[in-house]
Every structure is written in structure tokens, then in C-alpha cells.
């Protein structure tokens, strides 16, 4: 094996692993833990920026690890999301320092989970995929329990780890069925075996369970609201955008390459699940008063839209999904950022507390409005184009009924997103949340998603770039 080749293709993973070890050593060596926050954010910033340049493409370790331009783009999207979360959570993590003396663990676990996602997305066989998905979910359970003195945080961790273990067990059973039917665990070698054989079908459906759980598609969505509510907000936003995004990326890679021969089968499954997910997510979101639960259910509904785009099975569909996930990451992080900033300052998380928020904190209110409009899909912000491309791809495959359902859901979601906007801008409140200033990190963490929402919405070459990379990948 050529070593320089190895370093160029797997650079992102090696650098991230090195960052984890550096942080661990820093944690062991230094007494001044506050510096670790800056160190972690600085190192990850550098890693994110360099991720955009010159990562090679190719196959390593006999096909176990694959890197292509689109996969590198996936990793970059995740990197940017994690970077925003790091900025938003910096002051919260520093606060934990006095309370529990645990700082570097937050970053180490977060990065370990991200590293797992890298390997999951780049996997060329089920072994790496499984190690990746485990590595992506195990540390998150530790993160969800980070607020160790709060019962609901521990409860969130428990619910997450139990359900993740069960679903990944079912997934593993499915993988073993696929292996026993074909004798291989490599995606490429498995492709010719993907037929309507009943064992393959059953194995593939079982295998999908693990991924659908991560994206919180409807029969596997029950953990979402409780875990999102109990976990610290930084972890919640990680679960709702990064974890979901990574799982959606690998799902689309598998559906569009390995499972292409049985498209008729998974199309029907995804079709039904998409409708169910959109409706259930939206209907439950209508009734929520807690902002974290509210965003949890709205993110379930968004997951329904994500898988809707996969139905067409074409280049258009894949580009639409990738673009939609990118817009979703920015919009949702914008919304979570504002919730985070408010919770940090006042500890308030309920929708009623937001009444009259515009009077005291106009800038934050406007950002929240932008993010919610983008989630709802109102032009000219990014979310509109994301949904527009999704519907186009579904229309190109002739799913007109589905588009009708989706449009109904967009309307429902618009209603409840506007509820929050009304609370902030229209409603009166005798003692609203007082005006406050956030620290520098939080400001950056709020400005970045705002930029993302506008740039993705107004600068069309980005979509064309994605489309081009997808075209190269599917060839």
C-alpha cells in the first residue's frame, strides 16, 4: 500500500483521531481546563477549513474504505455543522467546568462520534459500517447524560442507549441474513445478489431499521422527543442535525448503489414511511409547548421530507436530498442556537416565555424567524429551494399524490412555525426575557447559520456543484 496515497485519502479521519488524542493528552497534562475549550474549537476550525482542500479520492484496505468527492463533501457538511455546535456550546461547556470539572470529555466524545460517522459514510462493507454506526451512537449516550445531576438527562441517555442497542441488534441480524445469502459483506460484491429473494428482502429490511432509527422515521421515532428534551441542548442539536444528516447520507449511498437492483421494493417502503413520518411529526408538533420537544417533532417531520427525495432514485433526487440536508442543518442549527442562547441566559425553554421577545432582543428574534421560515420553506431563504428541489425530483418520478401530501404538511408546519414567530413578535408580555448579550463564541455560532441560510438560498452554483459531484458518484 502506498503510504502517501493512504494519508491523502484518509486525511480527515487521521486528523480527527489525532485531535481526539491531543485533547486527551491535554486533559491529562494540564490543570487549566478552560484553555481546552479554546484548543478544541481552534483545532476543529483548522480541521474544518482544511477539509475543503485536496482530500484525495480512492479505495483503501481492499475496498473497506472509500472516498469520493461527494463523500468528502458529506464530511465537510457535517464538519461545518459540528463547528457551529462547538461555537454555540462553548459558554455552556465552560459553565460545566465549575460544576463538575468536566470539559474535554465533551469534545472527545463529540469528536469520537463524528469520527464514527466519517467511517460510516466512507464504509465499503458492512463491518466498517457497523463499527462506524456504533461509534457514532455510543459516545452520544455519554453526552446525553452529561448533565449528570439532572435526572432527565440521565433518563435521556438511558432511553437512547437502549433503543439504539435494540435497533442496531436488528440491523446486525439483517446484515447476517444478507451475508448468509450472498457470502460477502462488501457492498459492491453484494450488489449482484440483491434480488427479490425473500431472505435478501427480509435482511435488507432489518438492516434498514438501524438507519431509520437514527433518522427518526416514524415507527422508530418514539425516542426522539424524550431524548431531545432531556439531553443538554448542544447534544440535542447534534442529534437532530449531525446524527440525522450522517445517517441520511449513508442511507442514500446504500439505496442508490448497493440496493439499486431492488429499487421497486424499497420505494414502496420509503413511500409509506415518508407519508407517515410527515403527518405524525407535524401533528404532534402542533401541540408542543416546550421548544426542544417542538423542534424534535418538527425534525421528525423534516425527516419525512428527506426520505421523500430518495424515492426518485435518480441523480436529481440525490442532489436534492443532499442540498436539502445542507439547508436543514443550517436552519435547524439557527433555531437551536437561539433556543440555546436563551436557555443559557434565562433557563427558559417554553414557547410562552418567548412572548414579547422581539421588544427586548430584536436580533435574536429575527434570526429565529429566518431559521423557522427556512425550515418551513418560505422563499427566498434556503429551505424553500431545498423543498422545491425535493418536490421536483418526486414529480419527475411521478409521485403526484405524495407531493400533494407533502404540500399539505408544509402548510401545517407553516402554521406552527408561525406560532413561535407570533409569540416573539406579536404577543405582549409583562415581564419578557430581558435583553442580554452573548459571548463571542455564541455570536459566531449564531452568525454562521444565518450566513448559511442566505448563501444556500441565493447562490445557485452550490447546488450545481453538488449536482456535478453526485453525477460523478452515480456514474
Amino acid at each position, binding site marked *: 500500500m502506498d503510504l502517501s496515497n493512504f494519508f491523502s485519502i484518509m486525511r480527515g479521519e487521521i486528523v480527527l483521531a489525532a485531535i481526539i488524542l491531543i485533547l486527551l493528552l491535554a486533559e491529562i497534562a494540564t490543570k487549566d481546563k478552560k484553555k481546552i475549550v479554546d484548543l478544541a474549537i481552534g483545532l476543529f476550525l483548522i480541521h474544518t477549513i482544511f477539509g475543503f482542500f485536496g482530500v484525495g479520492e480512492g479505495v483503501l484496505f481492499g475496498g473497506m474504505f472509500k472516498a469520493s468527492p461527494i463523500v468528502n463533501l458529506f464530511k465537510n457538511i457535517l464538519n461545518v455543522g459540528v463547528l457551529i455546535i462547538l461555537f454555540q456550546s462553548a459558554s455552556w461547556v465552560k459553565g460545566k467546568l465549575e460544576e463538575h470539572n468536566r470539559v474535554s470529555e465533551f469534545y472527545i466524545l463529540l469528536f469520537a462520534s463524528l469520527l464514527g460517522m466519517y467511517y460510516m459514510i466512507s464504509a465499503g462493507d458492512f463491518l466498517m459500517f457497523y463499527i*462506524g454506526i456504533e461509534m457514532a451512537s455510543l459516545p452520544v449516550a455519554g453526552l446525553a447524560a452529561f448533565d449528570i445531576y439532572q435526572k432527565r438527562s440521565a433518563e435521556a441517555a438511558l432511553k437512547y442507549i437502549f433503543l439504539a442497542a435494540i435497533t442496531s441488534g436488528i440491523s446486525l441480524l439483517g446484515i447476517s441474513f444478507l451475508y448468509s445469502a450472498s457470502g460477502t459483506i462488501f457492498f459492491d460484491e453484494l450488489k449482484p445478489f440483491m434480488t427479490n429473494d425473500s431472505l435478501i428482502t427480509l435482511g435488507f429490511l432489518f438492516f434498514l431499521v438501524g438507519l431509520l432509527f437514527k433518522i427518526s422515521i416514524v415507527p422508530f421515532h418514539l425516542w426522539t422527543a424524550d431524548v431531545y428534551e432531556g439531553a443538554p441542548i448542544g447534544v440535542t442539536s447534534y442529534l437532530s442535525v449531525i446524527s440525522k444528516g450522517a445517517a441520511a447520507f449513508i442511507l442514500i449511498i446504500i439505496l442508490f448503489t448497493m440496493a439499486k437492483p431492488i429499487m421497486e421494493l424499497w420505494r414502496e417502503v420509503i413511500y409509506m414511511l415518508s407519508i407517515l413520518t410527515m403527518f405524525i411529526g407535524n401533528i404532534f408538533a402542533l401541540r408542543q409547548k416546550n421548544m426542544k420537544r417542538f423542534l424534535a417533532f418538527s425534525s421528525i417531520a423534516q425527516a419525512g421530507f428527506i426520505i421523500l427525495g430518495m424515492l426518485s432514485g435518480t441523480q436529481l433526487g440525490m442532489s436534492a436530498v443532499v442540498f436539502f440536508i445542507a439547508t436543514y442543518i443550517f436552519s435547524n442549527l439557527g433555531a437551536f442556537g437561539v433556543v440555546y442562547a436563551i436557555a443559557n441566559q434565562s433557563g427558559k425553554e417554553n414557547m410562552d416565555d418567548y412572548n414579547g421577545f422581539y421588544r427586548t432582543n430584536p436580533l435574536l428574534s429575527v434570526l429565529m424567524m429566518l431559521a423557522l421560515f427556512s425550515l418551513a420553506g418560505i422563499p427566498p431563504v434556503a429551505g424553500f429551494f431545498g423543498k422545491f428541489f425535493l418536490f421536483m425530483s418526486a414529480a419527475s418520478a411521478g409521485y403526484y399524490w405524495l407531493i400533494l401530501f407533502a404540500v399539505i404538511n408544509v402548510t401545517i408546519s407553516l402554521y406552527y412555525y408561525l406560532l413561535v414567530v407570533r409569540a416573539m413578535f406579536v404577543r405582549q408580555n409583562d415581564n419578557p426575557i430581558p435583553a442580554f448579550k452573548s459571548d463571542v463564541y455564541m455570536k459566531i455560532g449564531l452568525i454562521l447559520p444565518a450566513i448559511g441560510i442566505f448563501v444556500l438560498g441565493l447562490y445557485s452554483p452550490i447546488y450545481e456543484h453538488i449536482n456535478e459531484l453526485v453525477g460523478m458518484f452515480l456514474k
Partner: protein
Amino acid sequence: MGAQIMFYILATVIVVFSFLAVTSRKVMRATVYLLFVLLATAGLYFIIDYNFMAGIQLIVYAGGIVALIVFAVMLTEKIGDKIESPSNMQMILAGLISIAGAGVTISVLLGHDFKQSTQNIGQNVATIGENLLNYGKDGYVLPFEVVSILLLASMIAAIVVAKRKFEN
């Protein structure tokens, strides 16, 4: 013939004790039943001459994980108490779903025409070691290294969860 008889004995042990493990209403008993399931599974590996895997099954599962589960059970407040049994409705529904799931899976497995593998998969430790450290085709050095980070992360996560207050 001998292998077949042994297989049926072990399979019976596994089925019976798995059933006991999920139906027992005392946590500690369930753990011990689970131990027998894991031991019998090791027996299955011995039957197919996969001694290394059987050893792992004994050391890691029967030894390590059961010990961990025992400690985790001992952490709970009321170990001796019986767990509340679910309502009849839940039992019936869960039972029906389990039977349906098992029925579908078993019928699919029985209906499939399995082919004997022609690949020569090494079963002795030396072959496993060579494959584990090989970095070409059929080499597993990447998972080997990644697992070390997975173990590291799970250890840190466990310490974060279990240790209440860190002193300096």
C-alpha cells in the same frame, strides 16, 4: 451424528434459558439465565471447531459482560423485588407480535436454499491473526485500529456517566 445431537441439546438450552431470562421477574435470576445462554452459545462454536471464537465467547461474554451486568444489577435499589408484570393486554399484544415476527423469519430462513461456502475461512488463531493484521484485500487492519478508538470512547463515556464529581 454426534454433532447433531449436541447441537440440539445446546439449542434447547439456549431457547429455554433465553425464554426464562426474558420472563423471569427477578433481575438477578434473569442475569444468571443469560449466562447459561452465553455458555451454550460457546458450545455451538466448539461444535463447528471454531475454538478461538468459543474462547472469546467464554472470556468476553460469559466472563466480562455477565460480570458487568451483575454489577449493574447490583447498583439498582431494589434487587430482590419482583418486577411488575405487564398488563394482560400488553402481554397478549407483545406475544402476538413476537410470534408473527418469529414466524416470518423462520419461514424465510427455512425456505431459503443455502449454499455451502467454498471460501476457505481460517479458523485457527494464526490465520485469524494474519487476516487481522493484513492491509490488503481480506485484511482487517482498519477495523482493528478503529475499534481501539471505539473502545477508548466507550471507556471515557462510561467514566463520564459513572463518576459523579471529578476532582483535580
